[in-house]
């Protein structure tokens, strides 16, 4: 199997106000096309682990491989490029840029990647919006669409560069039941139809149950 993401012996400490170990010998890997959920109680370190895996947090010990490449800890522009190209993010809060319309928000990471022309990026962004059923919102300002729609725009944005993996931090945490189900169905479809790899942090057991694989954490360790 093709390993998209692999963590080897990851340890992380918080030093302020006293030194606490928040991640202890984390070892696991995710294969292409897997829909994985990362669950555990509040404070068990699941979000911390996700930020280490996302390359945004480089203050850890151990090794992280994305697509077989070891992530350096100091090269900020290189990590930014990896995030741009290989990882899509969906957060609990949507984090759309209110200065831009929906389409432009989706396009930004694609324009940053600079692999396709602007017209092509626009075309691809429209396709992603169509997959998520929100193409009619394309020209609305980001702050004029509803909460559930915003989260779907954020998913479209995560998809724009055809990332190797989509990482989500409680992507349904802020949504009602109906919208949560909608977002879950989208993730499920992405995994089943498009063979998209996903790693989603959640504390919602009903969400986790329906994924391919559950990684359970407790006190900074993976227990199952």
């Amino acid at each position, binding site marked *: 199997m093709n390993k998209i993401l692999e963590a080897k012996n990851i340890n992380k400490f918080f030093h302020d106000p006293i030194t606490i170990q928040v991640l202890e010998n984390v070892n696991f890997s995710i294969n292409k096309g897997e829909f994985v959920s990362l669950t555990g109680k509040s404070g068990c370190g699941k979000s911390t682990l996700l930020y280490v895996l996302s390359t945004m947090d480089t203050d850890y010990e151990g090794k992280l491989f994305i697509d077989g490449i070891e992530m350096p800890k100091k090269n900020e*522009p290189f990590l930014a490029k990896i995030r741009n*190209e290989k990882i899509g993010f969906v*957060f609990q809060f949507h*984090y759309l*840029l209110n*200065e831009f319309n929906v389409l432009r928000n989706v396009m*930004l990471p694609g324009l*940053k990647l600079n692999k396709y022309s602007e017209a092509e990026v626009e075309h691809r962004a429209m396709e992603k919006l169509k997959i998520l059923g929100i193409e009619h919102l394309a020209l609305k300002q980001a702050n004029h669409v509803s909460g559930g729609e915003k989260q779907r725009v954020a998913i479209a*944005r995560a998809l724009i560069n055809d990332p190797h993996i989509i990482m989500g931090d409680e992507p349904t945490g802020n949504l009602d039941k109906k919208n949560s189900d909608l977002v879950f169905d989208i993730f499920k479809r992405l995994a089943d139809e498009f063979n998209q790899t996903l790693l989603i942090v959640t504390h919602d057991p009903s969400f986790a149950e329906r994924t391919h694989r559950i990684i359970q954490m407790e006190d900074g360790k993976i227990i199952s």
Partner: protein
Amino acid sequence: MRKRLLLNIANSLLLARWRQTLVAAVGVTFSITMFITLLSFMSGLNDLLDGLILNRTAHVRIYNDIKPNADQPINKNSNYTQGHNFIASVKSDANRQAIYNSDAIMKSILKDPRVLGLSPKLTAQVFFNDGSIDITGSVFGINPTEETRLYHFDEYVTTGNSADLTKVNNSIILGKGLADKLLVQIGDAVQITTSKGDLFQLKVVGTFQSGIKDFDNVQSYASIGTVQKILSVPNDYITSIQVKLKDITQAPAVAKEYEQLYQTDAEDIQTANSQFETGSSIRTLISYSVGITLLIVAGFGIYNILNMMIFEKMDSIAILKATGFSGSDVKNIFIYIAVTIGIFGGLMGLLFGFGLSAIIDQIPFNTASLPTIKTYPIVYNPRFYIIGIIFSFITTYFAGWFPARKASKIDPVVIIRGK
């Protein structure tokens, strides 16, 4: 493409907060406007004041000073060469004031490539007689054409024509104050008595206002020939040669050289009028420092507004970084914002500065001592505009640099987790 994207983002951030942007830009505009106006006005004033004295003064003046002879006879006696000779009651030389061999000296000076031109001059002390009243005064013998070309003589001849001095025999141009005292007008005659007691009738062909009232009360001008006649001296008798150089800064060196070469005294303009040079440079210094202070204040305004903007846009910055924009991209975005404000505000400032100077240029400014000045003096110097735009660029760049660096260091994890 990459640059264009960053510019596009910067632009959107700018327009999303266009009121703030405008306030920041107005700050820059105001400071550049004042900078340009202040410098244009100050330079105008400087030129005016310099013109009052410097333009009318020779760069190098050649004359014979009244002073004791440096070669006293005792020093030439071989018996007294050892030790130091003290001589009591040394008197100034009875040397004549005329310059020896003046024709040859003038011809030789005119061949000097550093020299723009020269004008010979001589002075006669006379009494102007008006009934029973005698007014002490002096008559300068000049060459009106050269005097006008080199020292702007025409500019302060307020009535009459300076060229008439050579056209009309025995003619004179009186100082305004002197003419008022003598109650004469153009076409009238004045009577003068020389120091030797000779009487002369001179015809008034004009009056002048030099801007310095004390001068106007005692001075008058006539042609060289007329003054030579008054003094009853031969026609090569002149007491000073006023040399104007192409480059004023060479004056001290040239003066020293001529002193050696022609065995006379020579004084340069820097020595004669050092106070004006100092005054001008200090005024210029003050206007530059005020202008630059204004700019720095505007820079702080931009700094504040950008800082606030970064605080407001933390989330946006975090998501930009999470989705693959690097720290330097974020930094560039904020520097673009600052520099755009700076350049836009600066260009408007240049425009308004030009406008304000043009308005000041139209305000009437009449003063009795400066007959040629009708409005406030303004200098339109492209250098001020270039300095203005460069400074607005530099200050806003640095005002943007610090907040931008802060933005580039924002850790996306902290913000995203903090929600």
